[in-house]
């Protein structure tokens, strides 16, 4: 075994055992938390659209800002080497078709930017701008997420 190979093996083993312990160095964990936050932020908007919750433009904007922050970070949380582990639902397609994944992410990011710029003040306006945002969630999940078994 060459020196380089040995070193990379040691590095891999070390990473495998230490990475879950270091919060800032664990893309699997971070992206999972980020995605949970996105889901939590989507919920009040959905409930307003369903009529289960009173409309509140400020809450909608807070959720949109959460999406915006997540969209900015998300792309960096799928580095090579983070394909599997921790029950991740990330599909191999993310790494096989990185350009497609980045494009899907940009679709979401653009839709969020447009929604923030529109600053919706009614349920109808929210429905109009949230449609492309939610469809982008679905579109990306459809191609780049595997189903849990």
């Amino acid at each position: 075994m060459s020196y380089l190979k040995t070193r990379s093996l040691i590095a891999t083993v070390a990473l495998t055992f230490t990475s879950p312990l270091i919060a800032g160095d664990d893309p699997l964990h971070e992206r999972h938390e980020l995605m949970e936050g996105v889901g939590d932020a989507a919920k009040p908007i959905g409930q307003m659209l369903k009529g289960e919750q009173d409309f509140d433009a400020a809450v909608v904007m807070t959720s949109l800002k959460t999406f915006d922050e997540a969209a900015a970070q998300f792309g960096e949380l799928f580095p090579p080497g983070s394909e599997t582990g921790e029950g991740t639902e990330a599909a191999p397609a993310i790494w096989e078709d990185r350009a497609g994944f980045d494009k899907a992410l940009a679709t979401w990011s653009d839709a969020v930017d447009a929604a923030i710029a529109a600053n919706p003040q009614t349920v109808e306006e929210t429905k109009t701008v949230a449609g492309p945002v939610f469809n982008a969630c679905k579109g990306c999940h459809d191609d780049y997420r595997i189903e849990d078994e």
Partner: protein
Amino acid sequence: MLISRLLRVLAVLFAVIMVAAWWMTRPQTIAATDLPDHQPDPAGGERVFWAGGCASCHASPVNGKRAKGDDKLLLGGGLELDTPYGVFRVPNISPHVDDGIGGWTSVDFVNAMQRGVSPDGRHYYPSFPYTSYARMPAEDVMDLKAFLDTLPPVSGRIEAHSLGFPWSVRRGIGAWKRRYLVEEPMTFGVSPTLVERGRLLVEGAGHCGECHTPRDRFGGMLRERWLAGAPNPEGKGRVPNITPGGENISEWSAADIAYYLESGFTPEFDTVGGSMVAVQENMAKLSAEDRAAIAAYLRALPVLD
């Protein structure tokens, strides 16, 4: 002397059994004169098309992926269903006269959809879910044909299925149908109008039971476990129980179910996944009343664990 007589009796008996089996498994069809007096309406057929999700199987895959957008209207077939019985290849149902079903009459189409019999009098395998479509109003089936006729013809014939024995004996499907092809409702006492409208969609065109209901070892649905969840026919995992006793759906309101079918989002704001993605996209094209009817029907089902 005695033995040769016995052999003769056995031979006759065998012949009688074979003829009886042949007779019992014959494809049974509806006559053109038995069709309702109905002027087919393509607009009504489009509703049936989305409710039934015809495109989910029949739209030709694009670069190995399922068709999206307008490609869902190119019904050239070609999708392969890899099942425990063998590989089923989905045929071309575009209105192409030679390769698709463009040359079919209304009664040809009704017999395919509701009796599982091809225009040349052969049984279809129940991978084509005619056991569900048998519960549709015949008028809806005729409307669907009128809608399909408006779509672009696609050329190209799809290869035959590759099935293992005994499933490769197509005639045997006749015996299978005697047991499993039933038009009666799967559920009873569902009189309110909205629930009945949902029943026709779920049990008929929507053919939800084909995946959500478990099957016996011959591939027939277990009526007593109607919509109570089943192993995923495409491999890993399970298709969920969607009766009010289902693990997740028990917490959902009828409005949640309708919203999920419209938007693809669960009440927890996760998105729809797996084979249900295509189904949900089709359901999104139905009217809000149709989705509400489906939700009302699902809520009215017996609670199964």
